[in-house]
C-alpha cells in the first residue's frame, strides 16, 4: 500500500511508470522460484537448500566484513556452533523453535564475548585473531564426545514434512529453509537501512573520522560482529535441517575462508550478492568436478580468479551494471 502511495506521489517519470511492470516481474520470479522444488530432483532441492543456508551465513559475514570493513576468518565457528546446538536440541526431543532459540542464543553470546576484546584490534590483526575461533572450535568439538559425537559427528532427524503439506521431505526443507532465510534477509536489510548501516559505513571508511563524528565505534563493531554471529547461528540451524548431520568439518578454517571468498565473489554490501556468492560456492565445484575430477580444485581456483579479475564488484555488481546498461539501451 505504501508503495502505491509513493508511486502515485512520485512524478510520472519513466521509472514510476515502469514500477507496476517491475512488481509483475518480481511476482513472476517469485512464482517460478516457489515452483522449482515441485519439479526438481531431491538432489537439486538439497543444493537449493544449501545455497539458502550458506546465503544466510554469508549475509551475516557481509554485515561485519562488507559493511563494517572488519575481515573475519571465524564465521565457520558460528555456523558450526548453531548446527551443534540444533543437533543437541533435536537429539533431546526439543521442537524446531526451541532448537532455533538455543542455536541463536549460543551463537549470540559467544559472538558478544569474543567481539568485546577483539574489536579493539584493527585491520589484519583482527582477521588473524578471529582465526583462533576455528582453531579452538575444531579440537573442542572433537573432544566433547558426549555432546558432539566427536570426530564422527551427530546425525539427527531434525524435521520431516507434516502430512497436511503433501510434500516430500526435500521439498519441505527447501520451503522451510527458504522462509526462515527470507525473514533473516528482511531483518538484516531493515537493520542496515538506517542508523546502524550509516554508522558501519563510516567505520569502514575511516574509524577516526567516524569517532570524531560521534559514531560509537566499538559498540557498533561489537554489534556488527554479533549480527554476523547470530546469522551464523541461524545458518547452522538451517544447515542441520538441510543435512540432518553435523561433524567438526563444518567448524574448519576452510569453510570460514570459503565463506569470505563467496562473499567477495557474490559482491559485498548486497543482499543478492550473499545469495549469488553462496550459489557460486555450492554449484561451481559440481561443475568443475564434471569437467575433470582430478583438476577440479585448479579449475575452481581459475574460475575464482576470472570472476575477481573481471567483476571486482562481485557477481551482484556485474548484474547491476548489466541491468543499468540494458535499461539505458531500452530507453534510448
Amino acid at each position, binding site marked *: 500500500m505504501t508503495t502505491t502511495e509513493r508511486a502515485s506521489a512520485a512524478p510520472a517519470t519513466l521509472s514510476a511508470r515502469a514500477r507496476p511492470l517491475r512488481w509483475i516481474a518480481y511476482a513472476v520470479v517469485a512464482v517460478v522460484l516457489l515452483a522449482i522444488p515441485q519439479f526438481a530432483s531431491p538432489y537439486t532441492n538439497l543444493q537449493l537448500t544449501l545455497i539458502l543456508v550458506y546465503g544466510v551465513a554469508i549475509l551475516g559475514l557481509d554485515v561485519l*566484513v562488507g559493511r563494517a570493513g572488519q575481515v573475519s576468518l571465524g564465521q565457520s565457528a558460528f555456523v558450526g556452533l548453531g548446527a551443534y546446538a540444533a543437533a543437541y536440541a533435536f537429539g533431546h526431543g526439543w521442537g524446531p523453535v526451541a532448537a532455533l532459540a538455543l542455536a541463536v542464543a549460543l551463537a549470540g553470546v559467544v559472538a558478544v564475548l569474543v567481539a568485546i576484546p577483539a574489536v579493539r*584490534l584493527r585491520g589484519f*590483526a583482527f582477521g588473524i585473531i578471529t582465526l583462533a575461533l576455528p582453531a579452538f572450535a575444531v579440537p573442542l568439538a572433537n573432544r566433547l564426545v558426549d555432546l558432539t559425537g566427536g570426530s564422527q559427528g551427530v546425525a539427527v532427524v531434525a524435521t520431516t514434512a507434516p502430512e497436511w503439506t503433501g510434500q516430500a521431505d526435500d521439498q519441505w526443507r527447501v520451503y522451510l529453509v527458504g522462509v526462515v532465510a527470507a525473514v533473516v534477509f528482511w531483518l538484516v536489510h531493515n537493520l542496515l537501512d538506517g542508523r546502524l548501516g550509516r554508522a558501519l559505513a563510516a567505520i569502514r571508511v575511516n574509524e577516526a573520522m567516524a569517532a570524531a563524528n560521534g559514531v560509537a565505534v566499538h559498540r557498533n563493531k561489537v554489534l556488527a560482529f554479533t549480527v554476523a554471529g547470530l546469522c551464523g547461528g541461524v545458518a547452522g540451524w538451517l544447515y542441520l535441517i538441510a543435512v540432518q548431520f553435523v561433524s567438526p568439518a563444518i567448524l574448519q578454517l576452510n569453510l570460514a575462508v570459503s565463506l569470505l571468498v563467496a562473499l567477495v565473489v557474490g559482491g559485498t554490501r548486497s543482499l543478492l550478492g550473499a545469495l549469488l556468492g553462496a550459489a557460486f560456492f555450492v554449484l561451481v565445484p559440481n561443475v568443475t568436478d564434471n569437467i575433470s575430477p582430478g*583438476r577440479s580444485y585448479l579449475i575452481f*581456483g581459475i574460475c575464482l*580468479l576470472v570472476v*575477481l579479475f573481471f567483476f571486482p564488484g562481485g557477481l551482484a555488481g556485474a548484474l547491476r551494471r548489466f541491468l543499468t546498461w540494458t535499461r539505458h539501451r531500452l530507453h534510448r
Partner: protein
Amino acid sequence: MIAVQQIVDGITAGSIYAALALALVLVYRSTGLVNFAQGQMAAVSVYIGWSLVETGLPVWLAVLLTLLISLVIGALTERLLIRRFEGQEPLVAIVATVAVLICFNGLINLVWGGSVRAFPSLFPDDVVSFLGARATWGDVGTVAVLAGTVVILQLFFLRTRLGLALRTAADNPSSARLLGLPVGSLLLVGWGLAAVLGGLAGCLVAPSVPLQPNMMDTILVYALAAAVLGGLDSPLGAVVAAWLIGIVETVAGANIDVIGSDLRIAVPLVLLALILLVRPQGLFGHRDVERL
C-alpha cells in the same frame, strides 16, 4: 636440562615460522597486502626442489636453483595476477591471494600428484649437544640460515639503494612515482624476494615433514601470527615473535597436558590475542598516526 631442550626445539621450530613470516612482512611492506598464498607458493618451491634433486643435482645446488625459480614465480604472480588488485579494496586483494592459493594447490596436485614424498636433508644428520640439550645439525643449520637471512635483509633494506627504493615505494607509492622510482618493478621485486624467503622456509622444513600439497598450511598460521605479533612491517619483530611463538608453543605443548597435539595451533593465537590486547600495534610495529 629438559627446559633448555624445549627452548632449543622451540627456537628451531620458530626459525621456520620466522622465514615464512619474513616473506609475509616483505609482501606487506611492498604491497600492503597479507598474502595468504605465501605458504602454498613455498610448497610449490619445495616440490620444484624435490624434482631438481630427483634429476641428480646435489641438494645445495638444487635448493639454490629452487630459490632462483621461486624469485621468478613470485615476481610473475605479482605482475600477472596481483597487480590488478593493488590499490583496490583490500578485501578483494586478500581473496585474490586465496584464489592464487587454490590455483597453486591444484597445480601441485596436477603436476606432482597427491602422493607423499620425502625431501633430502640439507645438513649432516649428526647430533650436537651443548648445555645438556641436543640438536641435529639440521636444527643448528636452520637457525644459522635464518639468522644470516635476517642480517642480509636488514643490510639490504638499510644500506642499499634498491632497499631504500623498496621502502619508499611501499611507504608512499604515489610520492615514489613522482620521484621517478619504477614503483611497479619494485613491487615485483618485493614479491619475488618474498617468494625466495618462502621457498627457503619450505626447503628448511621439508626434510623433517612429508611433502604434501598442503604441507605449509599450519606453518602459515604460525607465520601469520608471528608477522602480526611482530607488527607486520618489522622484519626483526617478525623473527623475535616467531621465536617467542616457537618457544611458548613447545614449552606449553610439553608441559600442559590439556593442550595435546590438536590444540597446539591455538597456543600462538592465544598468545597473540593476549599481547595484542595490551599492545594493539604488535611488539615492534608502529602505531598508525594519520591526519584527517
